């Protein structure tokens, strides 16, 4: 994969300043996980050994299990912060923050905050039963728009035969929200092509009657467009914008959806958990992963700027 010059500079900057410290933290986390796995295996083998040696005495085995549970609770009560948790915090502080700062100094990173569920609901992506958000990036851009981006998880629930509720993953990814300086007097929805066999299809907002067919076969293959005003949809989805949308999807292989309503542009990327490098077996500053983060922020800002300009031109004149 080719990386642009700007990203190369950012990556080198992060690498030069943070590689050693992050690698130390990563190795501690990795060693801790290996140690925990060895301990678990030891107790498991010990349990099997005791069970066989006591001639399959179930009472002694149960006593052994009870002892293990007690040891586990004592351990959980008095343990210090895990090395993995420390590593994740270091990663966010050193890498994500630097990446975000490279776009705009006014944009800040808040690892423990998220985007409010009301904001997600306004975008009409899907109807969920449970919502969670964290790793908020927020700030005011040079063009006076407010920009926020955070990891979002939504779940739907099903009921088992016993009457218990089970939660299932509906959406795991990134949500970006950019406010436009002037309000937009229509609604525009860009969705991935319908897949009625996918369970999550049932939780999508019904938009069928607002369907708009665009004059690009390639675009129609990748996206379904819905709008309350066909003319405005055509004005915003110019050939340049359509090409930008298709290129990002093909190059980065990330599915995404877009909503433009009142004075906000919402983009959600179906990319799973992003702002956490939990794979301690991999080099912490994996270039490909970082490039994905970089491109998502870059794409959001680039697309929003272009759409804001078009909204101003179409709604309010040049």
């Amino acid at each position, binding site marked *: 994969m080719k990386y642009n010059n700007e990203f190369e500079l950012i990556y080198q900057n992060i690498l030069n300043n943070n590689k050693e410290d992050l690698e130390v933290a990563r190795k501690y986390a990795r060693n801790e996980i290996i140690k925990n796995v060895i301990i678990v295996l030891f107790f498991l083998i010990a349990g099997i050994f005791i069970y066989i040696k006591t001639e399959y005495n179930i009472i002694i085995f149960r006593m052994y299990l009870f002892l293990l549970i007690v040891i586990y609770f004592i351990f959980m009560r008095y343990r210090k912060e895990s090395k993995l948790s420390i590593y994740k915090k270091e990663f966010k502080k050193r890498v994500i923050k630097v990446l975000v700062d490279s776009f705009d100094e006014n944009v800040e990173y808040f690892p423990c905050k998220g985007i409010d569920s009301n904001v997600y609901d306004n975008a009409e992506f899907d109807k969920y039963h449970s919502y969670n958000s964290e790793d908020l990036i927020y700030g005011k851009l040079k063009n006076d728009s407010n920009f926020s981006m955070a990891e979002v998880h939504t779940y739907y629930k099903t009921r088992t035969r016993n009457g218990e509720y089970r939660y299932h993953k509906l959406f795991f990814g990134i949500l970006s929200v950019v406010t436009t300086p002037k309000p937009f007097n229509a609604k525009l929805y860009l969705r991935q092509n319908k897949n009625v066999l996918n369970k999550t299809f049932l939780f999508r907002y019904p938009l069928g009657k607002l369907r708009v067919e665009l004059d690009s076969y390639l675009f129609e293959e990748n996206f379904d467009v819905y709008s309350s005003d066909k*003319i*405005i949809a*055509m004005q915003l989805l110019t050939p340049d914008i359509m090409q930008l949308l298709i290129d990002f999807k093909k190059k980065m292989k990330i599915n995404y959806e877009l909503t433009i309503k009142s004075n906000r542009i919402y983009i959600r990327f179906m990319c799973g958990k992003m702002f956490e490098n939990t794979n301690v077996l991999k080099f912490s500053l994996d270039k490909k992963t970082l490039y994905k983060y970089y491109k998502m922020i870059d794409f959001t800002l680039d697309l929003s700027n272009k759409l804001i300009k078009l909204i101003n031109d179409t709604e*309010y004149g040049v």
Partner: protein
Amino acid sequence: MVIEFIKENLLLFLIVIIILLILSMYNYLIKLRLRVKQSKSVIDVYLQQRFDLIPNLVNVVKGYINYEKEVLENLTKLRMEFNNTKNISVSEELNNQLNRIIIKAEDYPDLKANDQFLNLQKNLAKMESQLQAARRLYNNDVTKYNTKIRVIPFNLIAFVCGFKEEKLFEIDK
């Protein structure tokens, strides 16, 4: 009981199915043709809105561009002709004249700074954008309709019922 009835009257059942299919295909072609007409009328509406700004433009500009009096008079005549005939070539000529005047205004700094003129320019640009969008929609609808009346089995219905191809909107070379 239903299955037995169908087995006994299989031929009748098949004829009914075929008639229903033909009717639904015919209705679908009618819908597509009406959509094309609707898209065309949207273009006419935007064109009319654009040309309705001409009297305001002439009033603003004539104070500044005295020696171009003939051009302005010609513009007004063309607009009246378009209102009477709704001729496409007249609308294209009118569009061209309008664009020429806007470009000509670049040579008159006083006119460029005039608030009324700036407002008109803004509105004209906005309408041009809407017109482009309307034309894209129209071409989209026409392509869909023309494709449908050529493919089997719709082409049979189209041939029998007299559905003709529509012309795409094209810029004159």
